[in-house]
């Protein structure tokens, strides 16, 4: 990564300041930061859909999903049923991998590096260290640099995003409030992250130390964001997207792609809604197309007011 002309113009300083564990032999380097982040770059402008089995994965791929996310239960069911939510059964993950040609991501519990090791052994394409599952460690997230599979992590603010990146995350998503069908928290998180990035770009060198303290984030990453005006990795939106207009909203706010969880398979007509959300994500700046694809989709998933929730998933992790 020291060979300047060969690295991405957007390759973060993280790759220089953080340990990079990668395979190298016979001229091919695997699991480099560029390669890990590269897949996230390819997903931009797309929709990643939560699925619990191969049948749902096929519906998602048919609808134009850029990737699927395997998990044991969709967030709204986790909310309704309670109990501990864990990594999917490996047999289900494998069934999903065999059913589709698009990338397969899977969720591991926060701090549960053994679940992540299992998912790496299954050769999933991305691991989501996710607050939607029940956290396994209240103090530490997974050391993601020690894995060859790339990680995505949720964040509610810029400090959280930069801490996850310092741990090796190659993709950040807003946490939102999963399983609610309520977009308000995702909007709050996106605005907070992007607003603070904007503020950093006008801070002077001395102020950046204060920002690092306030954000509880490494100064090197704070400086990099201040210099570039963007996160060192792509920023996607997750948590509460239920309609095509929701996808359009968060894309216009600055998300580069969207994750949809319960919003598709808890709606009346998942196949149509999935496809409509894909089209609305691509054409997010064209209200005529968003209107066209939004017509007659049937009932959305039932939504929840944030104030009525017993469990705020976004508060998991730090």
């Amino acid at each position, binding site marked *: 990564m020291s060979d*300047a002309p060969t690295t991405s113009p957007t390759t973060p300083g993280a790759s220089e300041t953080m340990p990079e564990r990668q395979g190298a032999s016979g001229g*091919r380097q695997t699991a480099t930061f560029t*390669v890990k982040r590269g897949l996230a770059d390819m997903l*931009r402008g797309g929709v990643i859909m939560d699925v619990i089995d191969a049948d749902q994965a096929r519906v998602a791929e048919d609808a134009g999903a850029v990737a699927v996310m395997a998990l044991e239960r969709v967030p709204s069911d986790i909310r309704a049923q309670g109990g501990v939510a864990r990594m999917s059964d490996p047999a289900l993950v494998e069934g999903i991998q065999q059913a589709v040609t698009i990338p397969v991501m899977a969720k591991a519990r926060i701090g549960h590096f053994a679940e992540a090791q299992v998912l790496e052994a299954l050769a999933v394409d991305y691991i989501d260290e996710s607050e939607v599952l029940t956290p396994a460690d209240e103090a530490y997230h997974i050391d993601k640099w020690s894995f060859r599979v790339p990680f995505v992590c949720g964040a509610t603010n810029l400090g959280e995003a930069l801490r996850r990146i310092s741990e090796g995350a190659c993709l950040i998503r807003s946490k939102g409030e999963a399983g609610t069908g309520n977009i308000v928290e995702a909007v709050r998180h996106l605005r907070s992250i992007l607003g603070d990035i904007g503020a950093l770009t006008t801070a002077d060198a001395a102020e950046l130390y204060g920002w690092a303290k306030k954000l509880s984030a490494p100064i090197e990453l704070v400086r990099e964001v201040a210099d570039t005006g963007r996160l060192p990795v792509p920023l996607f939106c997750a948590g509460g997207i239920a309609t095509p207009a929701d996808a359009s909203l968060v894309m216009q706010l600055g998300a580069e792609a969207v994750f949809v969880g319960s919003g598709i398979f808890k709606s009346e007509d998942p196949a149509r809604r999935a496809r409509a959300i894909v089209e609305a994500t691509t054409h997010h700046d064209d209200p005529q197309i968003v209107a066209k694809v939004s017509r007659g989709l049937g009932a959305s998933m039932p939504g929840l007011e944030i104030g009525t929730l017993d469990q705020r998933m976004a508060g998991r992790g730090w």
Partner: protein
Amino acid sequence: MRIGVLALQGDVAEHRRALADLGVDSAPVRRPAELSQLDGIVIPGGESTTMSMLLASSGLLEPLGKEIAAGLPAFGTCAGMILLGSSVIGGRSDQICYGAIDIGVRRNGYGRQLASFECELDVAAIGSDPLHAVFIRAPLVESAGDAVEVLAVVDPSTETPDDPGDSGVGGLTDVGVATPVLCRQDSVLVAAFHPELTADRRVHRLFVSMIEKRGR
């Protein structure tokens, strides 16, 4: 010169940045009307199945095909290579292939993300310095017709290292068989890797020079 970048999904911004670095104007293409007055089209990296669906739903499928068939210079990377090829293996039956270049492509032919890699390529067409190339779940060129000029191959003596042998991660490349990764036919250029992800602009410059030569 104005080059369109198909902007339905994928790493559109990186291609536009690469073209801007060369002083070339670019424009995102999401609607049929945006195909007019272009000197070339770039089909970026992304998911070819998603782009296929969106090409159809956006009404771009036929007009773009007609433009390419009529000689609009086209440059495809990764998913773009699949869309410009003549057949796709291991994809979906409803995937689009424009048949603009006579190659048969196996989707994700090098394996899953764990097998994604970076390496140096020798590309005489752009100079003697090696080209650093990034392959992400890359398509594998399984066949190339006589009209196809192979500009670069991956080193046949190397196999993706460290693949867990029992997980199906490993690619399908046979040791000893050179695999084309950069190909040209007439005014169509395709790469299995992502020159837009690195700072070396020689592959984009090659595409621009193909457009310039055609214009003369």
